[in-house]
């Protein structure tokens, strides 16, 4: 047998290993949906945060609780104690209650997802990277907005969808579908309202800050202080006597906050009159109340104003590149 004992022949360089620089002559497209690239990058970064998953998990609990309540018929006992809701509204009310119970967690989720959205870019001068590409200010703004809106929306909507599917499987024979055929649409809309208001206001705070912590602190202060002030204002401006006008005014004043507008609009979307017990301080006795949704147009106006102000504040801060110092 012959053996080749000579030096090994030089192997041709593998094209795979050839990482030397070459000009790029592949496709370069000016996409119509350039903002989606920005949004997708933001979403991917958020999905890497462990706390996002923790909060997303916690957001399941209000719907889980409502599911158990429906399953055990405890809602009917509660309704009987409260004076009795319209029986056909029991499912709608369950969804609204879960949505309301989820609000604080959604607010924390929004803080986690949105506070760093533009503030971190400001700190790292990332706008220089974005705006030196074929990306407009509006593309960047839309991308960042969707990058905050979508995670918040999904975290709000996914548990609701699970409960909806559970009800669809378990209670269709008991009138779940018949009582409110538009319930799924209402759920989507309510979750979208929460996502849109959080995303717009948070982007506004984030764009005016250099650090995510500062942006988060500003938004948290706005959210919590507005809620506390509205609550106090509602209670001190109204001495409850049981009249429906007074109740409507109190409801409106207590909803004049970020969280209040979200739940107020959601109650309008769910088209739900809530049953409540209050203590009449004049008559010194409990009173059964029907709490109608807060004035729709006021809530809608405030909600739209929050979105517009947030987006306008953000857009003002997105400036073209400072290219050369000199």
């Amino acid at each position, binding site marked *: 047998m012959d053996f080749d004992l000579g030096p090994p022949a030089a192997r041709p360089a593998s094209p795979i290993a050839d*990482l*030397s*620089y*070459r*000009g*790029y*002559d*592949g*496709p*370069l*497209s*000016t*996409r119509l949906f*350039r903002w989606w*690239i*920005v949004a997708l*990058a933001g979403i991917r*970064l958020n999905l*890497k945060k462990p706390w996002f998953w923790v909060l997303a998990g916690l957001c399941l609990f209000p719907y889980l609780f409502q599911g158990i309540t429906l399953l055990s018929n405890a809602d009917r006992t509660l309704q009987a104690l409260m004076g009795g809701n319209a029986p056909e509204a029991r499912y709608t009310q369950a969804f609204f209650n879960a949505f309301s119970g989820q609000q604080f967690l959604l607010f924390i989720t929004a803080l986690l997802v949105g506070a*760093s959205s533009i503030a*971190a*870019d400001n*700190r*790292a*001068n*990332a706008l*220089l*990277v*974005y*705006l*030196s*590409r*074929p*990306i*407009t200010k509006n593309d960047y703004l839309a991308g960042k907005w969707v990058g905050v809106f979508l995670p918040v929306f999904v975290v709000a909507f996914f548990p609701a969808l699970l409960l909806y599917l559970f009800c669809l499987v378990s209670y269709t024979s008991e009138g779940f579908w018949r009582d409110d055929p538009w319930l799924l649409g209402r759920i989507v809309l309510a979750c979208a309202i929460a996502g849109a208001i959080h995303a717009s206001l948070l982007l506004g705070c984030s764009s005016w800050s250099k650090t995510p912590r500062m942006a988060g602190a500003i938004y948290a202060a706005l959210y919590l202080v507005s809620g506390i002030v509205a609550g106090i204002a509602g209670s001190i401006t109204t001495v409850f006597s049981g009249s429906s006008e007074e109740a409507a005014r109190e409801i409106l004043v207590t909803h004049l906050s970020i969280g209040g507008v979200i739940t107020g609009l959601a109650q309008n979307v769910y088209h739900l009159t809530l049953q409540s017990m209050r203590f009449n301080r004049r008559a010194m006795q409990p009173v059964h109340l029907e709490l109608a949704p807060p004035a729709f147009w006021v809530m809608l106006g405030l909600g739209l104003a929050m979105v517009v102000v947030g987006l306008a504040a953000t857009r003002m801060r997105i400036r*073209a*590149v*400072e*290219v*050369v*110092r*000199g």
Partner: protein
Amino acid sequence: MAVATISHLTVRYGAKTAIEDLSVEVPEGCVGLLGPNGAGKTTLIKTLLGFLRPAAGTGAVLGLDVATQGLRIRQRVGLMPEVDCHIPGMNAVTFVGYAGELAGMPGSQALRRAHEVLEYCGLGEARYRNVETYSTGMKQRIKLAQALVHGPRLLFLDEPTNGLDPAGRDEMLNLVRDLSHGKGVNVIVSSHLLPDIERTCDWVLVMRGGKLVREGDIAGLRVVEGVQVDVELRLPSEPFEAAMRRRGARVFRQMGSRYRLTLAEGGTDPGRQLLEAAKEAGAQVRGFRPALRSLEDIFMEAVEE
């Protein structure tokens, strides 16, 4: 062929005129952009990138109108900004790939290309590290990588050697030189460091007060008028100076034993003259060459005119 053509360009910020009636053709290759503070370099590059609308005149980059085709221009050019910049929370490959996607590359190609470019820029080993953990030199390189990823035909480099140590500076200048002279990428370098421009660029534009005050290829600008020779002797020699003066030359002693001689035009061979003078003075000539101006001389002349 010119990579950028500017004709009677005027750019204003409100009432202030930043660039006034500027006309220039930026040639292919590596071009240095020089000028003191407020000269209009920033404004010129902003205008070329399509961020500012000219008040008058026209401009085109790679044949695209700066007033109406800003997006298409930015798709074909790359910018390496002066300040540190990155996308927070990303490692180098993700960041450079993302920059490619923003420029319009398909995701898979952007990722493949990110690996190539990072390897070329010397960050191959560190490509999976978060960019926020990079040293100053590495951050300069990643800025170059993100500017290169989509294969731009024209690259704007703003102070590319900022904050680099001598070895890092050397490597960065080699990269810039290789890009423009080896890879066929047109480069416009804005720098305050004249040696950087001198080492990398073939052509220079000097601006002052929003106007172009000097342009041309560096080799041509450095040639001095008349017959001037730089001579270095072993030791300073007054007899040599006297001997040269007797031959009608003007003698300027520069530093140590170096002299610049301005000889009468049309005389005998300059080399012969100075060797004869050295022999006469008993001086030892170490070397001589036709005098050249430094880029600093050219710059100072241009901005002081």
